[in-house]
């Protein structure tokens, strides 16, 4: 385990995580309950309570480049069991958001799978299992992923080769593209709301 230098705390990062998650990370008193119940801990480089501590200490680099934030399954066990009612799974989710924005992918296979899934949704409006698998193999080069399962599931007729495309798939693609353009950025939207409020006030007076 590496040493963490606590006198270099990135306070902006602490605030970013708190804003993104809506949680006060300072409320964590390191009881370790979250880690004790975390089913994915065995795959983590830093346990979830350690991630909480690293956030408190403003250790941006360690948190964002950790595999743990990507390997968290979002199972909500930690949130359910935190005695301080911190939405710990929400904090992990927020770290994923920030890491993604900074293009830090501590567990490549996971982020590639997410990308494959979202691309399938963008093309079809719905997720399509075969398509997602194909994209995933393409993005990771893991062409033999789960091939041994094919003879089990294909005869069941449960894996349609063609996607179910919805009529509104353009609309779904637009949602994703507006997101990529940053149109849901909180500061931008807040500024827009303020401007609206002002013009509404002016209209009244």
């Amino acid at each position: 385990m590496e040493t963490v230098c606590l006198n270099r705390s990135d306070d902006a990062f602490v605030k970013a995580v708190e804003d993104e998650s809506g949680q006060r990370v300072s409320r964590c008193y390191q009881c370790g309950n979250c880690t004790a119940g975390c089913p994915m801990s065995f795959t983590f480089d830093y346990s979830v309570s350690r991630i909480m501590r690293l956030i408190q200490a403003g250790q941006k680099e360690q948190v964002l480049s950790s595999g743990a934030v990507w390997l968290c399954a979002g199972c909500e066990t930690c949130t359910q069991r935190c005695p301080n009612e911190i939405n710990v799974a929400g904090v992990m989710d927020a770290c994923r958001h920030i890491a993604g924005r900074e293009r830090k992918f501590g567990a490549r296979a996971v982020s590639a799978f997410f990308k494959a899934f979202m691309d399938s949704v963008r093309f079809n409006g719905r997720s399509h299992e075969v398509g997602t698998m194909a994209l995933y193999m393409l993005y990771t080069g893991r062409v033999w992923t789960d091939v041994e399962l094919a003879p089990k599931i294909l005869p069941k007729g449960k894996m349609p080769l063609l996607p179910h495309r919805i009529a509104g798939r353009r609309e779904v693609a637009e949602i994703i593209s507006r997101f990529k353009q940053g149109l849901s950025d909180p500061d931008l939207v807040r500024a827009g709301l303020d401007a609206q409020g002002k013009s509404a006030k002016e209209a009244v007076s």
Partner: protein
Amino acid sequence: MSSINVGYFPGCSGLGTSMEYERSTRAVCRELGIGLREIPDWNCCGSTPAHSTDSALSAALASRVFAQGENAGIGDVITPCPSCLKNLRVALEHMEDPLFSARVEALTERPLKMQHSIRSVLQVMVEDVGTERIRGRVRRSLKGLKVVPYYGCLMTRPEKVMRFDDPENPVALDRLLEALGAEVLPFPLKTDCCGGSFSIPSRKVTPRLAGRILDMAGEVGADLVVVACPLCQMNLDLRQGQIRAGGIDRVLPVPYFTQLMARAFALPEADAAFNKLVEDIEPAFACMQRRAADIEAEERKAAAAEAEKARLAAERAAKAAEKAKDAGPDGAGAKSAGAKKTKGKADAGGGDV
């Protein structure tokens, strides 16, 4: 019995890997008088990949689903999939915040106008229909079937968002399966995560997490594991071979609760769609039938023994009465009448045997 009418969001897996859940859900709802109105041209809720990317993006995909519902006048929606449920529910909660809701609208450009709610199919079954009505529908009891209910990690958690049953030890599915006649075994891993969302990108997660669940189910003596989540189902059923290579040694079928309902209601086989499961469920049903026959034989034996006991007791009472009649002159008439009555009862009991 009032009928229930509600919007329906099947979720993407219903068109593929969980089509047996989809079919049986629709059939069982029809049988119970729950009218499902599918949201027209619904889209994917974005699942884990969307909420791992951004909360507003995830909520925007959910919001389009609700907007599509609005077009058809649908406000209240149910879904079979706990993962969709969590995404849609979290989106609605987040959108109560005006700034967040404005961010979502910046993506969808379709503000929501109606009140919306989203619940699981399981929740509607136990809360609106009720286990008593379900019990009343059973034509082919699941008596003799030993099951463990596996709720998965999301059905009841986080507690504040899901607001359904106990977050760590839920019992809704237990009660429902009991109403179908099954024997529900105590199961300590009801809400433990099976690692389903990582079954593709990581090869070490499923054998360990899903393996533990299957091992425990085998250990407590279950014939099968009943699920309510498409991700859990695929992970525990399709990947059981991969898991078995690493540990458990017996086959455990993994049906959805709605499939068992379809069977207990004696609906057509196509509705139960057991043929879509990878691990064959028929041996478990054969075992159930043998056990049910054994249970019934036991019950008959016990009833016969009870009757025999009653007959002997009546005989003894009659003999005692005879003795009393021979011995004393006072009040003998009344006593003998009492004895005759008892004897008559004993004869009837004997006739039953």
